[in-house]
């Protein structure tokens, strides 16, 4: 048997795993800076290929430093489940250099739903509170120059006879429910405006909107941005639910290791010098108990994950491992109820 052309190398920034075949190259890259050592991947990996290890093997490990992951190249089958489940987007699985997740394509595994709604029209000019609040620095806001404008398409519905010529010329115009609709604010309407046989289209110059960009795959949905926003321009639905308890009486005197380890700054120092959790922001990732020196002082339990619908044994198993059998049963029951409902619907036209 020929040996696998498999490579594993590690540098200061990342751990790299590669499996090369003729005309197919699988790889897995784990970023050291993005990994929080929460251990979700370790639990979820179907092949038990991932293990949490002290971060700097050669140097003396600082107490309370979050661990990093090590991937066993013998066991890893490059399925990408770790990539999908990492709340912080620290792992990327690729096929031939492209980010590709065959488990999603084959509906073998869901994606975490990161429901982030942004309404830039509500943004106050110059406001960057969300950017400042984000503990992971993945929010970016761009305010336009004062006075800058952008073209906006105006559709005269009385004139439009839905000939569709404009939709052929521009990707940004479409016909929805027998109405012409503009998908957004773009500069390229000129031609469609001019060719419209009905003269139903015109351009109006309006003030330019700011833009907010969130790196979604790295967002654990902690909601700091939402809370910080005074106008409600960002709304985030938490993808993870669960419970967390700090038993302060068990905390060692002056210990702040969990506070330092928390990737989303959900742990804070109380006035009495003890740590506590603000559950508004906690994502229940489990990074804090990994560094806690006392076994009983911190209890975190994940209870649910918001995900795209999927029917898969692999997902059921991952969910059960990450949360509990009860949660899995609930989900399965909900699924079968939905199925039943659908069946009833189908029967009654």
């Amino acid at each position, binding site marked *: *048997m*020929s*040996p*696998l*052309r498999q490579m594993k190398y590690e540098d200061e920034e990342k751990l790299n795993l590669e*499996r*090369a*075949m*003729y*005309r*197919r190259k*699988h790889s897995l890259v784990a970023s050291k800076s993005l990994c929080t050592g929460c251990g979700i991947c370790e639990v979820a990996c*179907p*092949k038990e290929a991932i293990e949490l290890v002290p971060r700097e093997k050669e140097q003396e490990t600082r107490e309370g430093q979050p661990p990093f992951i090590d991937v066993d190249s013998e066991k890893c*089958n*490059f*399925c990408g*489940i770790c990539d999908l489940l990492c709340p912080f987007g620290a792992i990327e699985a690729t*096929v031939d250099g492209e980010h590709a997740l*065959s*488990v999603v*394509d*084959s*509906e*073998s*595994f869901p994606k975490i739903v990161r429901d982030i709604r942004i309404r830039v029209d509500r943004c106050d000019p110059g406001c960057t509170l969300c950017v400042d609040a984000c503990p992971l620095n993945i929010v970016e806001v761009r305010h336009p120059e004062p006075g800058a404008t952008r073209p906006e398409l105006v559709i005269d519905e009385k004139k439009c006879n839905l000939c569709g010529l404009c939709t052929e010329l521009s990707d940004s115009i479409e016909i929805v429910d027998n109405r012409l609709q503009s998908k957004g604010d773009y500069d390229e309407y000129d031609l469609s405006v001019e060719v419209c046989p009905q003269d139903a289209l015109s351009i109006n110059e309006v003030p330019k909107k700011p833009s907010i960009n969130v790196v979604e795959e790295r967002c654990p949905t902690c909601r700091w941005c939402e809370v910080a926003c005074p106008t409600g321009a960002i709304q985030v639905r938490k993808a993870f639910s669960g419970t967390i308890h700090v038993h302060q009486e068990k905390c060692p005197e002056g210990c702040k290791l969990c506070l330092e380890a928390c990737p989303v700054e959900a742990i804070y120092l109380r006035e009495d010098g003890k740590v506590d959790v603000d559950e508004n922001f906690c994502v229940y990732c489990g990074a804090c108990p990994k560094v806690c020196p006392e076994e009983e002082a911190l209890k975190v339990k994940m209870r649910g994950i918001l995900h795209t619908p999927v*029917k*898969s*044994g*692999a*997902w059921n*198993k991952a969910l059960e491992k990450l949360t509990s059998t009860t949660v899995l049963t609930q989900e399965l029951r909900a699924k079968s109820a939905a199925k039943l409902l659908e069946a009833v619907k189908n029967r009654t036209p």
Partner: protein
Amino acid sequence: MSGENVNEPRIGVFVCHCGSNIAGTVDVEAVTQFAATLPNVVYVKRNRYTCSDPGQEEIRKGIEEYKLNRVVVAACSPRMHEPTFRRCVGEAGLNPFLFEMANIREHCSWVHSGPGATEKAKEVVAMAVAKARYLHPLKTITVPVTRQALVIGGGIAGMNAALNLADMGIKVYVVEKRPTIGGHMAQLDKTFPTLDCSICIEGPVMVDVYRHPNIELISYAEVKEVAGFVGNFKVKVEKKPRYVLQDKCTGCGECATGGTETPGCPIEVPNEFDMQLGPRKAIYVPFGQAVPLVYTIDRDHCIECYKCVDACGARAAIDFEMKPEEIELNVGTIIVATGYEIYVPSEKNLFGYGQYDNVITALELERLINAAGPTGGEVVRMSDGKMPRRVAFIQCVGSRDVNLHEYCSGFCCMYALKNSVLMKQHHPETEIYIFFMDIRAPFKGFEEFYRRAREMGVTFIRGKPVEIREDLETKNLLLRAEDIDIGAPVEVEAEMVVLSTAAEPGPDAEKLARTLNITRGPDGFFLESHPKLKPIDTATEGIFLAGSAQAPKDIPYSVSQGTGAAARAGRILSRDVWDIEPIVAHVDPEKCRNPKAKCGICVTKCPFVAIQAPPGEAARVNEAMCHGCGTCVADCPHDAITQRHFTDQQIMEQVRAALAEKPEEKILGFLCNWCSYAGADLAGTSRFEYPPNVRIIRVMCSGRVDKDFVSEAFRLGAGMVIVTGCHPQDCHYISGNHRMKERMDIHARILNKLGISPERFQIHYFSAAEGGPFSQEMKKLTQTVTDLGVERIKAENEKARPILEKMLKRKVEAAAPVEAK
């Protein structure tokens, strides 16, 4: 006992001239006259060729006219003609086991010269006569034959063996380790020298095996246990779970690739069948023409998403609850056709393999050049996916290399030529260089093919590259070699390098050898019973070899051997009962201590699990399972076991006859039949001379050699005693030589304490191929005896004798012949 009066031996001695082979060195007349003087010898005769028809007629006549009841033929090695003469005396109405041979050719006339040869010949005859006096008639054992066969391995050799047997009307079970039959041949692109498409010609054979009403294919299964003996093997086979129901799977493949509405398996795994060069799914068939066309789930990689179950839908062929299944088979014969593995030089990084992207093995090239392979038949480079325009082949990687595999793998020259021709056909502009030591193209159509490759413009360079370097930028490979033919260094910059790596025994060969009780040669391949005359048989009766399990072979050779193995197996399976040589062990229940003392030593010593000693009962030998090594006989502390035809008494008499004259000058050797004795025969055949003071006693296995034989030899004043066996890992009785070594190591210490110099009792190992070393060693040992000197030896023996006599008391007392059934 038969009607013959065995208590009053009437021995006839027939001395053979063997043309001038014996008569040219040995004074045959003198030997004949000497033989006439031996006790119980009533008739002597010499012949030019005793084995010839008139020679045999003389024996038959002698038996009739002189009422002979024992026959001794002094001629060649019993390994040569013992069966011939046994048949001959049998025809004259005498029990075939009342015959003994004196080897005065291989062990005498061919290795000695001068008067010493004649003297030795006389004593060798005396030894044979001494044994003959105590020979007993033996009845051949017959066992019933189960008319079913097992073939292990479904490659081209195994398939042919199975088909031939099945066509004879015999039920055949084919056990294949992998999910599909076809073996290595299925991986190849074209075959040499005809350039037939390999799978196109093999595919129909695979289907024939699957469809044949007399063949039951058990794929994805392994042989776990084998018990029993020729005609009556009980085999346990473990069928690994495929997690797909064989009777429901239609082979449609929707579970892997997905159907119109259902997605398939999401997991991609390197395909072993493609030498890990291309992907397969976690639910897979190794290749399109697989037989049986049943999918298998690779649970090592499966993430259990059950998408395959959805895709399979109403066919419901997938069962994740499947468990390993044990099947028990009763078969009469077993054919081992487990093939070879290709040597992968990754550990040693030979020629940069595993280190440089564009260095591949020939089997990897086969998969690349194959249209069904991972690249669709395009030979491209790993580094950039481009077609190489200059390719170098390096021959004998791992073969013909004393550090790895000494043997020549046989087919590498031809497949390298074949692949060169194919590449030239596909892209005539490709430059091809073959670095070789010798091109070996000896069979039908091979030389013509070699010429064809040369005519197509393949460049041949005699010499192995001494250096290979990778150009970091282009990933080309720079090869430096010395072209021996032109005597100048050459340098080639190749875009791809193909290593023609050795064929080596599979990783399971060792385990299987143990399961089947068959032996392997020093190269690790299964060992045949005789390299020339029994190339298909193993030392265990009823088990045969086919294909590359025995040694690397090309396709036609494997097919021939598979067919041959079917013939050898059919020879047994076509009979209702089968005869077994009765030279087995036998327990005297009167002497056995087990009923009283829970002894059971023999049970632990038997390499074949042929002895049972239930508490309170005497030990029993299952004669059909006993291979007749005699290890238990030698190890029984109460002399309760005897080996028929090699009884203690017979061997003791040989020892006494050998040491009757000038014992101090002599070396007495106990040689095992299969390796050492054959090695001594080879010394004869090769005419490697050695001094004539060596006396050889043949035993089936060195395990048979009793401590008492050695003690008796020293009691009689022997100068030196040697016990020789097969090399430690090569015992034809699995572990007989190990038992001998354990026993003799202890005995050596005792002899030492008694004052016998340690160099006077030695253990040696000779293979059947070591005629030269045997002769060399005999010379050295004789020198040792000479250096010690007769006086010292005598003194040592004198000192040890009283204790030796005490030790041997019970042997000497129990001199009455053992009754045989």
